[in-house]
């Protein structure tokens, strides 16, 4: 009995020892700064020192009572949701085909899908801004075809931000959906056909529901990455399409109002967390079997 207990403690010790490096990084470089950020968000702003030594909830009140700021919250969430939905729609067929390919072809296709991640975020965004600007490839092509008279405003719109985000984030979705497609037992598909279901029916009744966990995992990743992304909206949206991360940056780094920037940052984390929790609740309710699986 004693020996068993000792063995158990030793095992626990090993576990913690293995976790130690990541824990140190996580605590000192993530949780602790986050804690200071939280403290800072309840301080008043002082023009000379940035943070004054007085407690207040004014930062939050100011943000949540101003329609301008609330509009930015809505835009941030809207862009993230749109990005998520579009990535799901374009990633599913890609994942479907790659998961059916075999051997070497599969490896090449996977690499191809991952290629957007190999290019620096900033370079990729400037690439898009060249394509989408008033004098860019897209507008020039459309005008020379005679389809439009004057250039469409593509750059510095929500559209351009969404395009840029979809481009960089869809690999996450493809990989995630691919994983769940490959976990489907082929004989389950056969069973469906055997019972009289054609390919379309089999897809919607069997394949799609069984890949919902993959879609969900991909969505959580894409949503949280896009709701908090900074570089893409900064370059492709600019000051015209302000999102929360840009706002927080502006307050903290340009206007040096650290407490207010901290409050915005915290609200952003809050919104992302709430959305993810809601998302998972809906999923669990609609697909009990998958959750059990």
């Amino acid at each position: 009995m004693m020996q068993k207990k000792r063995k158990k403690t030793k095992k626990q010790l090993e576990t913690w020892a293995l976790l130690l490096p990541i824990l140190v990084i996580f605590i000192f470089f993530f949780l602790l700064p986050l804690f200071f950020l939280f403290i800072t968000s309840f301080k008043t702003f002082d023009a000379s020192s940035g943070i004054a030594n007085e407690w207040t909830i004014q930062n939050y009140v100011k943000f949540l009572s101003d329609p301008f700021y609330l509009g930015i919250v809505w835009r941030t969430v809207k862009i993230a949701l749109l990005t998520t939905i579009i990535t799901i729609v374009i990633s599913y067929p890609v994942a479907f085909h790659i998961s059916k390919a075999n051997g070497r072809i599969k490896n090449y296709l996977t690499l191809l899908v991952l290629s957007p991640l190999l290019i620096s975020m900033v370079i990729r965004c400037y690439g898009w801004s060249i394509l989408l600007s008033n004098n860019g490839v897209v507008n020039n092509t459309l005008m020379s075809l005679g389809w439009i008279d004057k250039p469409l405003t593509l750059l510095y719109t929500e559209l351009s931000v969404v395009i840029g985000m979809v481009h960089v984030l869809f690999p996450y979705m493809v990989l995630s959906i691919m994983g769940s497609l490959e976990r489907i037992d082929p004989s389950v598909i056969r069973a469906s056909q055997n019972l009289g279901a054609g390919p379309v029916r089999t897809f919607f009744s069997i394949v799609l529901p069984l890949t919902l966990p993959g879609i969900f995992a991909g969505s959580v990743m894409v949503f949280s990455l896009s709701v908090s992304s900074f570089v893409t909206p900064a370059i492709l949206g600019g000051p015209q399409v302000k999102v929360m991360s840009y706002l927080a940056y502006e307050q903290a780094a340009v206007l040096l109002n650290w407490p207010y920037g901290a409050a915005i940052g915290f609200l952003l984390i809050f919104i992302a967390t709430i959305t993810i929790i809601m998302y998972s609740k809906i999923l669990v309710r609609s697909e009990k079997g998958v959750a059990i699986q």
Partner: protein
Amino acid sequence: MSYLCLENLVKTFNKTEVVKKLNLEIKQGELVSFLGPSGCGKTTTLNMIAGFTEVDEGKIVVDGKPVHLLPPNKREMGMVFQNYALFPHMTVFDNVAYGLKLSKIGKSETQRRVLEALEMVRLSGYEKRYPKELSGGQQQRVSLARALVIKPKLLLLDEPLSNLDAKLRQEMREEIVEIQKNVGITTIFVTHDQEEALAISDRIAVMYEGRIEQADSPVSIYNHPKTDFVSRFIGEVNQIQGKVTEILGTHQSKLNFYGNEQIVAVNAMKNAEMDFFIRPENIQISLVETNDRNIGFKAKVERKMFLGAKTRYILKAQNKHLIADISNVVLNSNLIHEGSSVYAAWKPEHLLPSRNVR
């Protein structure tokens, strides 16, 4: 008139013929096992019948209609898979109802038939469970109910018991036969377990290298194997050699085994060496020399193994090994020790002549 007819079926994968001109006719209501070692083409043949594997050559006719060009969803066959293949995101009820919902019968009729099917496999009350909440045996029963509820033309079972433990396997196979007989559905049962095949089949098609070696009743397969492969594959056999010493007539020859002569019902040529198979349970041993028709020869007990109901003796006679299984009721195994000399004997009718002509 046969119900299912496989005519000259051929399947080639990567230039290897997996199924070679296979022919088989199955009567309505029959339970036929495909039995063979792995790689013999039994699962490929089943998949061709179900439509999951394309037929390269030949025809599959069910109830007078050729079906080999139809997609699997148009063939109206119920299949039970080795790993059950239940839909993990659906309840037991929805799993069983899946095929019925596609056939567009009414909701109440669907409900009635699903509950009926679940009752048949003794799973009433499990409708709301998910497959993950069921044991392996229960999952297999749901799978059976799901296949039968659509009233298929054929029931196809692909090694349905191989994932279950020994005891449950035996229970399930009896249950499957009972249900199959009650429903009266023509069934193909793929297995590599010969005991299973012998126990449940009306007929067994023993397959080897893409061909059916013999399709016969279990008794015929066991007692009158038509090929050497069937002799060796079904049950256990000793291979022995005899020399023809005298021809007594058509189908009557005298042969010499281990120095003793015996009259065997075979056609032979004088002085020819002939191979025979004999099953371990057909060899008798005794401590004294035996009589009349049974040849008796001296053998040494090399090893003995107690196996419960029987004891297995490894005998050595003229430098060749023989296995004999003797019921412990017939002969008390304590009387025979390793190393002792015994007399071994067999009846000539138990000799299975080898087709392998030397």
